[in-house]
């Protein structure tokens, strides 16, 4: 442990003190840490997380295994059929309709939520009086479970007695018709999750260093310039984390859409996960449902890989911008 000899008072004033006459402390051989132990350090820190990953991935693997079986309720003793499920799903126009719905939903919802979230974060960051009041309640929509939130929205959407048509005088406008259901689902998603983006981005903005902004403020740089050239590059990593989480979640959107429309009318809001739910849970065609989800998983995996790559680049660039 400590080989330091007791240090007497620094004695005289001045900086000579610290090293004093007794600065000649000596020690034995200091303890060493081997190179291997050093290299192992980050891995050791990650081990518990790794265990959790593996533990949780196990059921995923099992789920993926279902997709090469012919496992249904009426065939509880299945055997391996390899890619027969994939072939039949990929030939199914309903599947491709679902891919389309999922893509539109995910892109639209993510874009709208990100733009709105960033704007709200910027507006709140102005720390005006109004902003300060609202900042406290920003998170409220997230507090209502999506299942419940969608139920409330469905009540508000109802053309007979819903409050929206009443307040806006829309008569019997059908918010959840074939043409409007997807947009309305996106609206509800935006309502629930924009605060999520806003909070992440706001926290990010607040963690930015102030100096560059002060400097450019002194330079008389315009707000837009400051935003584009300074703030945005530094905010990108935070925005991208929000985008990644939103986009991934949107690709597997289920809860609130299912409550609103059950995937209808027709196939108008049948996202991939709703399709998977129908197959796996309602029809108990487990293999087909797993095939759907496996394909969805691949889709998500590829996009995630791409987005994470973009995030990495943005982080390096942001690091550059801060220096």
């Amino acid at each position, binding site marked *: 442990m400590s080989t330091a000899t007791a240090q007497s008072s620094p004695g005289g004033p001045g900086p000579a003190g610290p090293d004093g006459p007794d600065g000649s402390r000596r020690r034995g051989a200091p303890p060493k840490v081997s190179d291997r132990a050093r290299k192992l350090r980050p891995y050791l820190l990650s081990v518990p997380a790794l265990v959790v990953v*593996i533990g949780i991935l196990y059921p995923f693997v099992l789920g993926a295994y279902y997709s090469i079986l012919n496992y249904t309720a*009426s065939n509880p003793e299945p055997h391996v059929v390899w890619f027969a499920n994939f072939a039949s799903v990929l030939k199914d126009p309903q599947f491709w309709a679902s891919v389309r719905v999922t893509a539109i939903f995910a892109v639209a919802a993510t874009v709208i939520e990100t733009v709105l979230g960033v704007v709200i974060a910027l507006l709140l960051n102005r720390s005006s009086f109004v902003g300060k009041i609202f900042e406290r309640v920003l998170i409220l929509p997230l507090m209502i479970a999506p299942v419940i939130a969608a139920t409330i929205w469905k009540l508000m959407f109802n053309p007979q007695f819903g409050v929206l048509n009443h307040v806006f005088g829309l008569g019997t406008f059908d918010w959840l018709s074939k043409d409007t259901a997807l947009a309305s689902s996106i609206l509800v998603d935006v309502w629930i999750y924009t605060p999520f983006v806003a909070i992440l981005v706001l926290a990010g903005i607040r963690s930015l260093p102030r100096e560059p902004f002060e400097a450019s403020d002194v330079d008389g740089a315009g707000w837009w310039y400051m935003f584009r050239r300074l703030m945005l590059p530094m905010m990108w990593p935070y925005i991208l984390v929000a985008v990644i989480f939103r986009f991934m979640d949107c690709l597997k959107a289920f809860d609130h859409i299912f409550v609103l429309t059950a995937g209808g*009318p027709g196939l108008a809001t049948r996202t991939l996960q709703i399709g998977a739910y129908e197959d796996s849970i309602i029809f108990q065609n487990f293999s087909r449902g797993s095939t759907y989800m496996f394909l969805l998983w691949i889709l998500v995996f590829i996009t995630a890989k791409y987005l994470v790559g973009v995030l990495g680049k943005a982080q390096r660039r942001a690091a550059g911008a801060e220096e």
Partner: protein
Amino acid sequence: MTSPSRGFSRRDMLKAAGLVGLGSTVLPSLSACGVGGGERHPNGASEITGSFDWKKLSGQTVRILQTPHPYQQSFQPLLKEFTELTGIQVVADLVPEGSYFTKLNTELAGGSGSHDVFMVGAYFIWQYGPPGWMEDLKPWIANSAATSDEYDFEDIYEGLRTSTSWDFTPGSPLGTGGQWAIPWGFENNVVAYNKAYFDAKGIKPAEDWGNFQQLARDLTDRNEGRYGVAFRGSKSWATIHPGFITQYSRMGCKDYEVKDGRLVAGMASEQAIEFQKAWVDLAREAGPASWTTYEYPDCTRDLGNGNAMMCYDADSATYPKNKPGASKEAGNLAWYAGPAGPDGSYATNLWTWSLAMNAASKNKLAAWLFIQWATGKEAMSKAVGTAFADPTRKSVFDSTFKQTLGAFPGYLDAFEKVVGSSKIQFTPQTQFFQTTQDWSVALQDIYGGDDAASRLRDYAASAEAKVNV
């Protein structure tokens, strides 16, 4: 409290510690049982011997999975009587209707016997039965050591008894094979209407399909928030099975016909297309404005709120709306059998919530005692006194239930008019949920503008392919 909380114990900790060995220990056991309910459980009735005694299993617990429903709610206060009678504790878990089958399907597919008894409808037997997830109750009924002499199974309406029995051969009629569930409460799909409004305007319910459509259109005034008739339209098999399939059957249409051991789809026959097109047009012109989201609570709510003038759905679903204080139009509602078919047919689809036993249950006698009690005369008579409609026992219907119907004009008449021709109008088949949901999707597409004939032909072809696997 019905659910003793198990909370968080040291045993839980041990279980969690077992997780560490998850990779090594679970993998082999899963490959044995990795795909859920692969295991077949033998029928347990033969193990019960000796004389019948309610108290046989005193001190044990039976777990029931239910969905909130007037049936369940009227039985809730009676559960303690079961415990008094048998000494068996009841743990009743409730899962809301929207998630009920998610929960139940997973549980059965997972081969778990965590609930001994569960609520099901007749169609579910077609899906849960073939994999062996449900216990055949016939041997239980027949075993005098397990069943009280007073039980009187034949007192239950015959249509209901056959509706929960099948041999699992596609196309084979109901009533063959095992008894997979005991009907508990049931409902006929008839028309409920706003009698107060009808009377004020001097309108009489329409007795045939043509007049019915016309009347519904005439009653509709969107500016007043009023429309003719509410019926379901959401993307679900449940859209097909109440009013739709009832009227479809009255019009002489068939879902499938058996030809040479194959099911041949009938949804695209000329007659069927004509009816379905008319049905969707009716929804558009005289139905709820957001028809494609409408489930039965929406329909009955609009009836109760005075938005819908009629409601073509289960009598037992509209029934609670007329109870004092339950809705705005409470006391103003009345029932009739709905429009007859061209040949005067009152063919009606029924739904029965029945009680089934989990084949994986480790407590089968307790489960059977509960089912026996709940579907027995005494308990059902008591339940009828609150909100239980309709009882499945003729004796209960004729004695107790009729007396409660004084404030429900037409209810009894409608019931008696259709009960003789009320049965499951679907052809039993194992792909019921998928093909029937697809049917609702087809109707939604037509509602959204697709051509009825071609859309239904597509549907019929795909359904036929699916059911004849």
